[in-house]
């Protein structure tokens, strides 16, 4: 001990195109931009990283093991725009050393807004993972590691899963270590794997930061930090975006060399090994309860929902989106349903975040809008068009006559 549990989040949204009130088209998404980004990230991250992982798995004869959660929106896009990435993920799946996790297909915030939609999206993702990679996922991770006690209850009710991944948030753990397994209150079956955010973020965020006192960090040095856990934990959960490799941390930072060295440095210590989340769950018992009455996530310094629900525009956009659910589903129109679901991807709300000043860098990097206001206006304009499509498809539904005087924001005050 300890085990290293390496899990990568792999995701791209369908970005919206610039859509104004003067348009009537149903083509909401910016195909050219989405193709361009998908292929760029494939080139800089997915392909070289998959190749590296495959190489490491072969080199260490099954001792190097990893997990992925690949969202439905990305799987669709690589199937169309970068099929060689799909093939390389399938090769990885065939090694038996790679576990695929399940989440909401559209990387959505549906858990917070519609439990019915939440379950449907999990089912959809499970089926897709099974179809593409031949695995039945047993580990659940929610969008952006959004988690609370209710989520555990909801996931336990679905019944297929053994564990959930969550952020090792200090304010819940207190003096306790994220390097053990925990269980949610009132749960008999589920275990929780908590992200070791210090060691994870050393790679994901600080790796190329020259102001960081530990820069430049070598695989040897990183392994020594992992070894320091020995005797004080079962598992070090390193959870991060896959795009860390080559996209957030560019190739010239040495990130690929670091990853290539890491397994040998970790495995130098005889007590260490690599385990997938399911193997961690099988190997270790939960040591205590992780009580999260309030919602946590892995985002920003707040580790809460404020990146997606931190201002009235975000609340309003989410409220309007999920208020359409019954109407959308009543149309029985697969195109309308797909468009509505693609609008649920959390990125659309992240673009509307006004927390510029503290977390500005990260938020701006992932944002193709000039401002959160542009993001909101574009989103709700598209939503209005979707609404009118629903009304057209449902003759009994007439769009409410539009008056700019009416106070139609039913959203609560800013958090």
């Amino acid at each position: 001990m300890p085990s290293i549990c390496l899990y990568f989040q792999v995701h791209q949204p369908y970005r919206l195109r610039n859509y104004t009130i003067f348009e009537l088209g149903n083509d909401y998404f910016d195909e050219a931009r989405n193709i361009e980004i998908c292929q760029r990230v494939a080139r800089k991250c997915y392909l070289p990283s998959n190749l590296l992982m495959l190489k490491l798995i072969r080199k260490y004869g099954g001792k190097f093991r990893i997990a992925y959660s690949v969202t439905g929106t990305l799987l669709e896009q690589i199937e169309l725009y970068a099929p060689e990435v799909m093939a390389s993920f399938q090769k990885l799946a065939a090694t038996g050393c790679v576990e695929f996790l399940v989440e909401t297909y559209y990387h959505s915030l549906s858990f917070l807004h519609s439990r019915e939609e939440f379950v449907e999206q999990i089912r959809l993702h499970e089926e897709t993972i099974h179809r593409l990679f031949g695995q039945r996922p047993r580990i659940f991770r929610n969008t952006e590691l959004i988690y609370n006690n209710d989520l555990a209850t909801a996931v336990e009710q679905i019944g297929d899963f053994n564990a959930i991944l969550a952020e090792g948030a200090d304010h819940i753990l207190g003096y306790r270590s994220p390097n053990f397994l925990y269980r949610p209150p009132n749960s008999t079956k589920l275990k929780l794997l908590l992200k070791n955010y210090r060691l994870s973020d050393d790679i994901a965020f600080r790796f190329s930061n020259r102001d960081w006192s530990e820069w430049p960090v070598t695989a040897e040095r990183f392994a020594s930090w992992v070894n320091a856990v020995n005797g004080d934990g079962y598992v070090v959960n390193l959870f991060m975006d896959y795009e860390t490799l080559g996209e957030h941390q560019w190739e010239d930072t040495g990130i690929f060399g670091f990853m290539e060295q890491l397994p040998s440095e970790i495995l130098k210590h005889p007590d260490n090994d690599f385990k997938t989340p399911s193997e961690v769950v099988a190997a270790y018992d939960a040591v205590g309860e992780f009580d999260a009455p309030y919602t946590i996530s892995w985002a920003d310094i707040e580790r809460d929902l404020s990146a997606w629900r931190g201002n009235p525009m975000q609340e309003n956009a989410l409220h309007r989106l999920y208020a359409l659910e019954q109407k959308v589903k009543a149309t029985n129109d697969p195109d309308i349903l797909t468009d509505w679901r693609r609008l649920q991807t959390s990125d659309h709300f992240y673009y509307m975040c006004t927390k510029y000043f503290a977390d500005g860098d990260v938020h701006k990097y992932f944002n193709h809008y000039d401002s959160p206001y542009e993001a909101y206006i574009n989103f709700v304009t598209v939503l209005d068009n979707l609404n009118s499509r629903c009304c057209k498809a449902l003759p009994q539904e007439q769009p409410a006559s539009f008056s700019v005087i009416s106070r139609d924001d039913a959203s609560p005050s800013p958090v």
Partner: protein
Amino acid sequence: MKAFMLGWEFPPLISGGLGTACHGLTKAMGGLGVQIAFVLPKAQVSGYTGPVRVLSAEGSVKTEQVGGFEHVSFHEIPSSLRPYVSSAAQEAYAPGRGPFRPGNRRYVRSWHSEDSEQVENYPHDMAQQVRRYASKAVEIATVEEFDIIHAHDWMTYPAGIAVAESTGKPLIVHVHSTECDRSGDNLNQNIYDIERHGMHFASRVVAVSNYTKNIIVNRYGVAPEKVTVVYNGVERDSGGDGSSAYALPDKMEKIVLFLGRITMQKGPEYFLMAAKKVLEKVDNVKFVMAGDGDMTNRMVEFAAYLGIGHKVLFTRFLQGVDVDKAYQMADLYVMPSVSEPFGIAPLEALKHKVPVLVSKTSGIAEVLSHALKVDFWDIDQMANKIVAVLKYPVLSRTLREYGHIEMHKFRWEDAAAEVKGIYEGVLTG
């Protein structure tokens, strides 16, 4: 430290942002203990009772402390100038009827016109006024003690240069706007030359934004390291603070406000074209154009031509409480400027808790986050965003509330401290 400051206008006698900026900056610099002698042309109209007493010093030198200003004295030079032309003046001097170049309907400035003495109070005698101002300023300088000269905009650059040459003191020119902003590519060569000479002669140039700094560097050939950006502030004491100080009738319609000079620089025609588009989507909204300028009458005609005359109200020039009322009535303030060096008006709108939409070709767009931004020529986007603000109250609320908070970061105290730092840098060499 003592500064000899040369300005052209001062509240309440202002036609644009220059007077407001001089007022805010001077007051804050006085507060920092900088001694300032402020030289102004004599105003045409007297009898205002504002916070600043307008002093008369016909031909002679006179200094006096003015209420609310520490360490600041004012000198007035009799002169009748207004840098901008009103719609009435424009009417009287339609192309072909006077000494004005046909085709240049923007600014009627005939620099060395022989007719310049014939019509008083109009800008074509401005050259004479600028010269007169310069010679008077040199006279005043002989009896004032100061360390540094600070000239605001081109009308005072000749005075600044003359005083610098006669006293040997360093000159700083402060660029609140340039001929390139005001006249696009149809430059008045004389004014451009005065601006260029002032910028090159000066020890340092203060620009009100990076947008303006780029113009100074690229269009006037000034070395970038000589130009320092100092953003304007917004004054807290005057005008509304967002609370409704005046009883307004219950509005049945939303109001979108344009407030500023109605001139080419401010992009009034884009505002009307966007209004036309908005009205295709939303009915219960009116567009208010507050201000005056050489394009006012054309805009009245243009609104009629677009078939939206009944939806556009023209208020002509507004002052004092009327400006506050205009802001308070508004649901959105739009500044569609073709070229705006800074843009204090959007900050004034935010002070009144009115959300703002500004053109990207403005200084304020580079520093204000909580504003909608468009290219002035992108009518579809402008209309799209106006509709969004009218239609989605939560958008209006977010822009209003966050913008109001952000507005407070524009402090004249900070601008004054930066200018003081520039003085110190120049004086210590």
